[in-house]
């Protein structure tokens, strides 16, 4: 069973989600699968993690991406490469109308509602907003995994809680 999965993983493209990692030049991708328990005849979720070669940092934490196996292993860890970012995290587009979506509503509808009530200057402006990543490492610490603080170092690591 496990061998079959590994073999088919080598042949096909895989769809997974990018998770925080400390590795440079590589991204960690979580691929969710359902595995059949033959005794219970029930499917259970099983996560597999792949390290993908990605020197340009194409994908950020949370993105849904397509990955492909490299013809040869790059290192002991890096076996795949990022093919394409399918769904950027937190920037959802409705596939039918092509409009941007916020939760269950279109962004333009939300804006329209605010305009009817009288939009204030303090409201968030989507057009003027910079693309994702401008707070990365300043106030938004999500690119690397956080951990419990275990020692007092000279430099304070923001990822230590």
């Amino acid at each position, binding site marked *: 069973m496990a061998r079959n999965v590994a073999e088919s993983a080598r042949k096909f493209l895989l769809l997974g989600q990018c998770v925080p990692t400390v590795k440079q030049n590589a991204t960690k991708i979580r691929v969710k699968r359902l595995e059949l328990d033959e005794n219970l005849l029930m499917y259970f979720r099983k996560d597999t993690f792949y390290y993908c070669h990605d020197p340009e940092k194409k994908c950020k934490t*949370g993105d849904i991406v397509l990955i492909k196996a490299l013809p040869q292993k790059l290192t002991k860890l890096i076996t795949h490469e990022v093919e394409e970012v399918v769904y950027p995290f937190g920037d959802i587009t409705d596939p039918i109308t092509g409009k941007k979506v916020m939760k269950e509503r279109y962004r333009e509808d939300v804006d329209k509602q*605010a305009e009817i*009530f009288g*939009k204030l200057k303090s409201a*968030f402006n989507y057009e003027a907003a910079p693309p994702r990543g401008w*707070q990365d490492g300043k106030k938004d610490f999500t690119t690397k*995994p956080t951990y419990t603080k275990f020692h007092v170092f000279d430099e304070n690591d*923001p990822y230590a809680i």
Partner: protein
Amino acid sequence: MLRRFTSSIIQSRGIKHQVNIKWVRPEYKPSYDPEKSGDLEGVPQISKSSLGQDYALSEEMKNASEAVQKLFSVAFLGQKEYHTLVRKELMDRVKRHQYDECTAETRIARLTGQIRYLQEYMEKYPRNNKMKKVVQEIIDKRKKLLKYLRQYDYKKFEWLLEKLNIEYKAHPDSYHKLSRKESLRKLTEMHCEDIRNKKLADYRNLLESQQGPFLKQKLEALKFIRSEQIELQIPISVTEQDIKKVEEQLEEWTIREGIKQEAKRKRRNLILNVD
């Protein structure tokens, strides 16, 4: 008797420490601490003479005498009114429209206001355990709301962090009590990694320093072989391109070596200057 006494003083059994690592346990921080909650600023500045939220709207209050205005100021109305103003101040930073009360950003702003004045309160009364729990719950709730906002609208999430001056850190894999053993293990691992990296770097330097002389030798040998082959009129196995390639490699190496030497000299000068 004596043995028992000495063993209680000097620990004879246990782990033998071959690596000299000094572990410093991180200082205890209560859960409401701004460093843990991620608040980068305190309570917004609101003067004690400002009017209560509802009284400020009144027409008569504008023309009222100073004594009356003083009576209806926050200092006289009490903490509750003051806290309302704190929440309002933070909510005004992110409000979409005048009646906006329950969108994600205003909810987060309101909770932020609550957290900030409660943090100030907890500084004063750190033994109020009931309030400590309340603050913790509010902080968790805000974190959850931020997490959801991040999932469905990343741009707004980042904008909100900037506006309200909050830090967002994702949850670690596990929240557990810190143990000495775990910390020492991690520190030892880091120490080993350092040693490994240093050895690898040294070895790399050694190999790179040997590259130059070898390339020079190779270049001479190739030139010699080529000239001999031309002289003896036998098929030529060394092309011009091969020689050119080696020359280029040698040039690159000399540039790299020059940079390295420069850096080394600078470092030495720095050390001498410090001494």
